């Protein structure tokens, strides 16, 4: 509403009412949260085994001692995640585009892409990790690479199979009339895909995509099975040294902290999309 328009008394009354309603609901939720937290806390602390569990899972000194190694490991996870996200985005867009190609010339490529998505959506990540991490270097076809490198490749292969399906669904959700309009302007098939279809498809599937990346974020910890000293592996080493599980809890917390921004971003973006697509903004 433009500033300095006169406001009617009715509207002033309505606004005052809404303000008090807001204050009330904030207070109510605050109180109920505190009560809830206290009840849970008291229940846990009064269990018979709490002292023991506290010592072996929540020991501050062990946590502090493990901190440098675990945080160094987490840095490895972040690097792997970074390259894996880029790799997945590139590969899955390529696969999705191939799967939407029409015409007999593309049949072999299309079939290959379909077989790939079927295969890697079915294979457990941990098996892919073993096959790629130990099998491919054994071929001695490629120059020597670190376990971290092969772990990243395995993640990319597994997750691109999922994410390409998400992209494909998005591409197919763009109404055919958009393609018709683009081709009618004289745009080629490729230009239509790149300028008109893909941008709309990406917008449609971004929330689903972000969720897949949150899932990948924690699966990055699985590369430890290849011997990469990431946060999980570091925690394992520390745990074995002290017979205390606190380092695992520490690593777990760090993974959650790492995921939080992405989770929040996903929620925010989904809400924004919904707001844009909804005409009545209060329902």
């Amino acid at each position: 509403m433009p500033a300095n328009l006169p406001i009617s008394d009715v509207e002033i009354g309505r606004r005052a009412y809404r303000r008090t309603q807001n204050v009330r609901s904030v207070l109510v939720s605050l109180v109920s949260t505190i009560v809830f937290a206290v009840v849970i806390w008291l229940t846990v602390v009064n269990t018979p085994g709490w002292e023991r569990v506290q010592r072996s899972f929540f020991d501050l000194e062990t946590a502090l001692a493990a901190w440098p190694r675990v945080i160094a490991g987490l840095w490895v996870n972040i690097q792997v995640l970074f390259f894996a996200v880029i790799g997945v985005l590139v590969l899955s867009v390529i696969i999705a585009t191939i799967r939407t190609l029409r015409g007999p010339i593309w049949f072999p490529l299309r079939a290959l892409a379909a077989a790939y998505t079927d295969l890697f959506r079915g294979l457990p990540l941990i098996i892919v990790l073993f096959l790629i991490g130990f099998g491919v270097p054994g071929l001695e076809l490629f120059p020597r690479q670190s376990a971290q490198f092969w772990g990243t490749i395995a993640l990319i292969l597994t997750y691109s199979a999922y994410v390409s399906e998400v992209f494909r669904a998005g591409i197919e959700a763009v109404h055919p009339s958009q393609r018709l309009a683009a081709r009618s302007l004289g745009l080629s098939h490729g230009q239509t895909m790149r300028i008109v279809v893909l941008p709309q498809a990406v917008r449609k599937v971004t929330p689903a995509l972000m969720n897949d990346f949150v899932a990948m974020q924690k699966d990055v910890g699985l590369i430890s099975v290849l011997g990469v000293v990431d946060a999980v592996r570091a925690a394992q080493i520390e745990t074995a040294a002290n017979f205390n599980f606190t380092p695992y809890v520490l690593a777990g917390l760090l993974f959650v902290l790492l995921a939080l921004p992405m989770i929040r971003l996903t929620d925010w973006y989904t809400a924004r999309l919904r707001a844009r697509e909804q005409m009545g903004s209060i329902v």
Partner: protein
Amino acid sequence: MTEPVLRMEGVRKSFGDALVLDGVDLTVAPHEVVALIGASGSGKSTLLRCINLVERIDDGRIWLGDLDISDPRIAADRVRARIGVVFQQFNLFPHLRVIDNVTLASRAVLRIPRAQAEATALALLDRVGLADRARAYPDRLSGGQQQRVAIVRAIATNPELLLLDEITSALDPELVAEVLDLVRELKGDGTTIVMATHEMAFARDVADRVVFLDGGVIVEQGPAAQVFTRPQHERTRTFLSRFLGPA
């Protein structure tokens, strides 16, 4: 005699067993405005889509200028770039601003530099009273505004032929006039237009020639005044009586 912009000879098109176009002959001269009329399902849209090469004809020939565009060896994208199309449902690109919708073909197909394409586009938008909406996204525009943008997008590349497919059917009655006024202006500019329409009053007003399509063929054609007031064929009379009321 000047060369026609469009020439169709014996054009045939079927979908499965349904023969939609059964030998259509049509010639459109430069600067001519042709109105296609006919019942729903008579093949008006199909005819326009065949001209625009988004539907492959089963027989016959189509020339754009002196180029046989039914020849499979021609570059179809090039031909489509020479023909402007406006659809019933506007079909603007929702993820692109108005200005980018309008300049897309100029930039991507004709390779005109962005600055130059935008200058042309802004001048056109200004003409239709939408220059101030250039940076808006299409969903922030009214139906009539969207359709005017769609028309501007279709003519931004200076096409030799403009195809309009019932461009006012999806509009609220009070928005129809602003779109029809724009078509009238385009006619004033000398644009060659083939339009499928259910707006008989408008067809009578603006079209140089009215073409009545029925049963897959052109049953009757002629100057608007003639076809509407003295239709020669029984089928034309029956069709028109449903629209204009019995004479």
